[in-house]
């Protein structure tokens, strides 16, 4: 026979109740009687008489089996607060067993379709938003990577303009040239009006208006010595462009040519094989060529010409050669394109060169007008 306290007695009754799930009013009495018959009480423990009927305690214990789980009440309250705040919560069970059931029924993403393992309701809208944001971020990262990988830097053609200033080649020997020329055939009247003959570096035949030999054995084009690229205004008859007379005449000069002086040229008052005022070949009087005591003008302000859009698109490049007279004041004038490039580059070159300023060429320390070539090179690379 063993000692047994009321704690053991109560626990035995409770154990039986829990095991057999007995909750009938007669059960506590049975448990009490059974325990009392078999075991002796612990003298230090409270007696049944002191503690009252143990059956009441068993009844209470039976009711306590229906207690809700410890966190159910607080979890349900949280759900209701969310719902009350206007947030939709996921429907479904509210306890862990239900969560496990949901996990079993939806092996994939169980927490999305039920409750999280922490017991909080899952907000599917947040989940969907998170997935969408991650997808967008992944797309942006991927797209950026592909763009960086496939990016080939586009090289825009950079126009490059090279300018060369070349002295105009002196057409006649080493003589200081000042241009111009005249001639004549010792006729009584002044030379008649007409076009200037073509220019050439060498003169085989001086220009003549009235030919004495209409059928020469060796025909040669009458020329004046001048820059060969010069183009003079053309009329039907050769003559002195500065004359006003219409009657054909080579003029009172001598030595062939047209005019009142000697030398085989046209027009001028200084004689020589050239054209216009001045002497000793060349053109137009008072304009020197560099060399032989005449310094070449030096550009002191020379903005580069722009590339024309048409040439840029066509990746067109090349050189424009122009003849220019740099005056004693350093300003360019009488610009003449002698080698054209086209595609608007000629105009761009002329437009730019007109704005240039030069330190003029000098002769004997004095600035003089000097004719020179300006070559503008347009390069894309």
């Amino acid at each position, binding site marked *: 026979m063993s000692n047994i*306290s*009321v*704690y*053991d007695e*109560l*626990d035995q009754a*409770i*154990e039986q109740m*829990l095991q057999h799930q007995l909750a009938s009013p007669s059960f506590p009495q049975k448990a009490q009687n059974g325990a009392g018959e078999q075991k002796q009480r612990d003298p230090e423990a409270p007696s049944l008489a002191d*503690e*009252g009927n143990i059956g*009441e*305690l068993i009844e*209470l*214990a039976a*009711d*306590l*089996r*229906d*207690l*809700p*789980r*410890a966190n*159910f*009440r607080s979890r*349900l*309250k949280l*759900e*209701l*607060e969310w*719902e*009350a*705040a*206007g947030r939709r919560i996921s429907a479904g*069970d*509210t*306890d862990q*067993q*239900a969560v496990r059931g949901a996990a079993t029924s939806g092996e994939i993403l169980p927490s999305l379709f039920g409750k999280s393992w922490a017991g909080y309701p899952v907000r599917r809208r947040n989940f969907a938003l998170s997935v969408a944001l991650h997808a967008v971020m992944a797309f942006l990262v991927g797209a950026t990577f592909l763009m960086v990988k496939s990016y080939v830097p586009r090289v825009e053609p950079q126009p490059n303009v090279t300018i060369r200033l070349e002295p105009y080649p002196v057409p006649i020997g080493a003589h200081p040239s000042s241009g111009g020329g005249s001639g004549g055939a010792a006729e009584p009247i002044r030379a008649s009006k007409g076009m200037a003959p073509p220019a050439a570096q060498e003169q085989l035949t001086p220009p003549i208006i009235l030919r004495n030999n209409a059928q020469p054995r060796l025909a040669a084009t009458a020329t004046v010595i001048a820059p060969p690229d010069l183009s003079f205004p053309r009329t039907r008859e050769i003559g002195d462009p500065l004359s006003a007379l219409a009657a054909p005449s080579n003029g009172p000069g001598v030595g062939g040519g047209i005019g009142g002086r000697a030398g085989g040229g046209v027009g001028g008052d200084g004689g020589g094989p050239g054209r216009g005022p001045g002497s000793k070949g060349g053109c137009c009087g008072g304009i020197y060529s560099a060399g032989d005591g005449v310094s070449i003008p030096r550009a002191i302000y020379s903005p580069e010409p722009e590339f024309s859009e048409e040439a840029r698109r066509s990746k067109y490049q090349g050189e424009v050669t122009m003849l220019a007279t740099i005056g004693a004041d350093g300003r360019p004038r009488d610009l003449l394109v002698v080698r054209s490039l086209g595609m608007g580059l000629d105009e761009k070159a002329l437009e730019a060169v007109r704005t240039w300023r030069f330190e003029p060429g000098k002769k004997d320390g004095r600035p003089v007008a000097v004719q020179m070539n300006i070559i503008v090179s347009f390069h894309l690379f």
Partner: protein
Amino acid sequence: MNAVANLANLTSLDDERLLIQAAQSDPSRFAELYESNFNRVYAFVARRVKDREEAQDVTADVFHQALRNLSRFQWRGVPFAAWLLRIAANALADRWQRAGREVPADSAELEAESSPADVVEIERRAMLFQLVDRLPADQRLVVVRRFVEQKSIREIAQELGRSEGAVKQLQFRALETLREQVRKSDE
């Protein structure tokens, strides 16, 4: 004594009416109604279903429905608990229908105000559940482990790091305390 009158005595009707009005204008105030009626609804449901999990499911349904339909509740001097118990009875009937079960023969059992004895028993259990929350922490822990989780004394002793005798004593003291509190409330 009328069952509804019993319920009415449990809380001040005026206070409850104000709480309902506050919750109708601000649903976040529904928590106060929930706290004052949770044990009552749960006790009502727990007497009618087979296990704790089902009781918790139905209880949750009842309060969710109540929150959704709170704006339609009209105060007629009837305790809010009566409305909740009617929702619970309907929820149980729906559940049984869905499960293919017939409504119990004494379907009056499902009516919240039909049986005064039933209401008294509900109130007694609701009070008991509330008293468990007021137990000292160690006693409450033993009660939960023993009766909710149905662990043995040995398991509880190992978990708490105490002797089995000490756990049995805590169990005894907890039940003694509850019995005293219930007796006081009955008086």
